């Protein structure tokens, strides 16, 4: 039973961070929320005992996606609806 509680908490955190990514108007904050999502989903793969998937998710989600999003924000604008 007690093994299931972290699992449920991580799933709830996934839903909340996905909603946050949608909700933020500041795109840098949205990127950080997407980073939180990828960390939590990597932990979720880990709890489901798939460490190889967790490694690739860590490499892509934590390292690459954040960097690409930040490069995109720098090239366009920081806030939604603004074009620098």
């Amino acid at each position, binding site marked *: 039973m*007690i*093994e299931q*509680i*972290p699992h449920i*908490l*991580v799933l*709830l*955190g996934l839903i*909340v*961070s996905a909603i*946050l990514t949608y909700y933020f108007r*500041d795109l*840098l*904050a949205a990127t*950080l*929320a997407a*980073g*939180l999502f990828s*960390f*939590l989903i*990597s*932990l979720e793969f*880990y*709890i489901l*005992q798939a*460490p190889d998937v*967790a*490694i690739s998710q*860590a*490499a892509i989600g*934590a*390292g690459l996606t*954040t*960097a690409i999003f*930040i*490069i995109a*924000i*720098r090239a366009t604008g920081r806030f939604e609806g603004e074009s620098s």
Partner: protein
Amino acid sequence: MIDAWVLAVLCLTVLMALAAVRLVLGPTAPDRAIALDTVNTLVIASMILLGVVFKEIIFVDVAIVYGLLSFVSTLYIAKYIGGEL
């Protein structure tokens, strides 16, 4: 008897949720960045503990890779906030 390792992982998961509260509230971008950094550290610590819970050695390696990669991502965010990118 309740397993102590699972209980510690449970505490760390609750702390991750509390750190995410600062990610929602944080007035400025660096506040959110340090909240994300805290979540990183807690995820790595709980991964090391889960490696013992599942009795698999390979699980601890994921924590090492994860720590180094999240460091790169944090440095990238810091470079953008400081305007040096």
